[in-house]
Structure formats: C-alpha cells, structure tokens
C-alpha cells in the first residue's frame, strides 16, 4: 500500500513538473525578443514535458504489475529528432534573418556551411 502511494506521489510530481515545463517552453517562445533566443525554449522544455507524460504513461499500471514499452520508443524518437529539427530551424534562421557579420569566425579558414558558396541553390 505504501509502495502504491509512493508511486502515485512520484507520478503526480512528474505530471505537475512536466506540465509546468511545457508551459514555460511555450511562454518562452512568446516572450524572448531575438529569433535565435526563441529557438531555445520550446525545443528543450517542451520535449521534457512530453518526456514526463511518457514516463507516467509507461509506469501508470505498475501497481497492477504491467509496464508498457511503446513509450520508450516515442521517448527515443523525440530525443533523437528534437536536435535535428532545432538544427534545421537554426540553419534557416542563419540563412534568412541573421547578419553574417555578427557571427564569429569559424577558425578553420572555411566559412560556416550554411553560408558557404558551394551550397546548392535550387
């Protein structure tokens, strides 16, 4: 009985925390002034929010002795794809909205890949 209560408390804490993080991510998207700064809040905080929901979904039936595995698949997929979408969005911002003069030098003698001349233009 106490174990079931402990699990209940733990899952509730995960839900509350995850919900707050998801809200903060979307609030940051609205509040931060620069386009590159806005990229920071949702990509990570929202992923953490969904991750918390997935953990709760996986462990929800633990007191009855059942654990679901599909949540792990979704978690792995989100953790793998969040950086990739963020990278694509950052490259789009670099190309369209950032002044190349404000970027630091790459230090290798070659320009940054998104802005280099051999970039194929469709």
């Amino acid at each position: 009985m106490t174990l079931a209560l402990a699990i209940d408390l733990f899952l509730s804490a995960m839900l509350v925390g995850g919900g707050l993080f998801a809200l903060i991510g979307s609030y940051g998207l609205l509040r931060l002034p620069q386009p590159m700064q806005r990229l920071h809040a949702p990509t990570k905080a929202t992923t953490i929010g969904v991750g918390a929901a997935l953990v709760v979904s996986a462990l929800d039936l633990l007191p009855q002795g059942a654990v679901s595995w599909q949540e792990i698949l979704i978690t792995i997929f989100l953790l793998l794809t969040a950086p990739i979408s963020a990278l694509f969005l950052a490259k789009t911002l670099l190309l369209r909205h950032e002044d190349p003069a404000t970027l630091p030098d790459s230090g290798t003698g070659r320009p940054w890949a998104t802005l280099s001349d051999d970039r194929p233009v469709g």
Partner: protein
Amino acid sequence: MILPYALLFMIGCICAALILNLIRLFTSPTLTDRILTLDTMTVNALALVILYGIWAGTGLYLEAAILLALTGFVGTVAYCKYLLRGSIIE
C-alpha cells in the same frame, strides 16, 4: 488517489501552452518563427494525446502519438528544407 488531479493540472498546462502557441502563430514576426511554433504545437498536441490515453486507461492512443511524432518531425524538416534549398526532394 491524487494522480487524476495531477493529470488534470497537466492537461490544463498543455492547453494553456497551446493557446500561447496560437497567439504566437498569429503574431510571429518571421516565417521561421511560424515553423518553430507549428513544431511546438505538434509536440504539445502529442502530449495531449498521451495524457488522454492515461486518462482513458488504454494504450491505443500511443500508436496515434507515434504517428503524430513522425509526421510532425517530417513536416518541420520539409518546411525548413524548402526555405533552405528551394525544394524538398532533390
């Protein structure tokens, strides 16, 4: 015991987040911001689907969640590639 209340709280949080996203979608200054907002909305909707699955006590909604995650990711990458390269499939 207190789990249903926590569940309701998180559903409320996600709904508020989706409303904030909608405001951002209509007031966003750049096109890239709109793509970012759509991506965030997909992830928030994904959370909502999963939470409804917990509420209903069935694992069936997880498959819908997988599909939503897949299409959301592919959509974001396709939008960005279109802005970066001018075409999606080269």
